[in-house]
């Protein structure tokens, strides 16, 4: 069992707003962790802290055995290469085709040869079931297709860990399934991932751990069978949250 990510006692504040109040998260290689929680509980902030898009005020983030919380500004990009991130609003580069969106970072960041990067990009787009959209531009793709391009773009850097921040929240209901499908396939192939989501079905099917966050803390974490078992006593706030999203 290789621990890929071991975050302990993470504290993050924006000015006087104390957003993360001592979060612990341990992710073993190949695991999929689903994070759920009410709006404003700090889920997105946690993901941004984990790949150093935001500095933390206190705590330790061991990633592949190294404490990255102390990384300098110059070291941070090299670490982010190893952590893929997928956003709620896709954030594809609008001036590039699907293929070039995927190939850009390998070429410009890793200095990969263009031909090879494009070949790999095509293979990744096939993997996310978009083999016929290589030359399409973002504005010619549906939300679900754009999000799958975004997943391929993140995979292109061969990350050891994938972070998804509500990847299906901005999608039409018809296209949610195709994105979750791709994410589940990746998880089953052993891609380590942390997924912030409100899709309880996905958490049940694909997660190894379900984590409930509230007010900047992990309130409850358990494997899905236990987490969703009807007779386990749950913390009040979690019971109310689950009740709310069930309706």
């Amino acid at each position, binding site marked *: 069992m290789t621990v890929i990510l071991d975050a302990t006692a993470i504290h993050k504040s924006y000015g006087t707003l104390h957003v993360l109040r001592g979060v612990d998260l341990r992710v073993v290689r190949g695991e999929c962790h689903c994070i759920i929680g009410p709006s404003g509980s700090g889920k997105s902030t946690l993901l941004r802290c984990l790949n150093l898009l935001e500095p933390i005020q206190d705590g330790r983030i061991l990633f592949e055995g190294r404490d990255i919380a102390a990384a300098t500004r110059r070291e941070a990009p090299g670490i982010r290469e190893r952590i893929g991130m997928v956003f709620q609003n896709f954030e594809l*580069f609008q*001036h590039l085709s699907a293929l070039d969106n995927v190939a850009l970072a390998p070429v410009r960041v890793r200095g990969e040869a263009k031909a090879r990067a494009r070949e790999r990009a095509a293979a990744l787009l096939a993997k996310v079931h978009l083999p016929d959209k290589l030359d399409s531009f973002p504005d010619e793709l549906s939300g679900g297709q754009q999000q799958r391009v975004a997943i391929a773009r993140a995979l292109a850097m061969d990350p050891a860990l994938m972070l998804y921040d509500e990847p299906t929240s901005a999608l039409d209901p018809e296209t949610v399934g195709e994105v979750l499908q791709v994410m589940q396939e990746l998880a089953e192939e052993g891609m380590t991932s942390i997924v912030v989501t409100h899709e309880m079905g996905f958490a049940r099917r694909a997660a190894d751990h379900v984590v409930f966050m509230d007010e900047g803390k992990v309130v409850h974490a358990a494997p899905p069978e236990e987490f969703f078992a009807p007779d386990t006593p749950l913390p009040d706030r979690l019971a109310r949250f689950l009740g709310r999203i069930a309706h």
Partner: protein
Amino acid sequence: MDSPELILRYLSSERFLYAAWMTLAISLCSLAGGMAAGLVVALLQEARLAALRWVAILYLWLFRGTPVLFQLIFVFNVLPGFGIVLSGFGCAVLALSLNEGAYMAEIMRSGIRAVGFGQRQAARALGMRESQVMRWVVLPQAMRIIVPPIGNQFIGMLKLSALVSVIAVEELLLVANQAAAANFRYLEALSAAGIYYLGLTTIFMALQALLESALRRRGRKPQGTFLQRFLGATAEAGRVR
């Protein structure tokens, strides 16, 4: 001397050539100054500090709210009283730059805003350094947005520069006027100036259309024929100030 011959003589005369060069130089310098001023104003408008945003608003209010002719004459006649003595050329470029900045600010702002925080963050998440984010994600998209309107501004500027004849800068209109005043052959002198203006605007419209085609995303069909796009450039140029 008949008209065509005199027009030809004016066209090839050193005075007219020099005047055309002045027109071009004033336009280019003012456009560059206007872009710099516009970028500063755009950044001020986006600033966090309210006081800075107010400075930008004050600037826009002043320079959009008064005629550019007034601004030229003001710079030429009032600044020397404060010990700032500039050549006619210097006054022309200063006034036109400041005026242009008030319009360029909007263009720069649209370019800066075109690439949202989300895309920049996505690029960072892929391991790009700030300079790479700028080079490969922000600039290509910003350029595509600001080049067409900047081209229009430049063509407008070529025409606007005729105003500086009032502060005795030897550009095309002043030289044509002086030549005509000597022999009352207005048709010939103004035709020569008009031909130079058309020549300059045509060259730059063509350059603009070419640049736009080059910047247009690969694989996309351009809208309209080359000629339509070429003339389209004139439609928005030369906004009345």
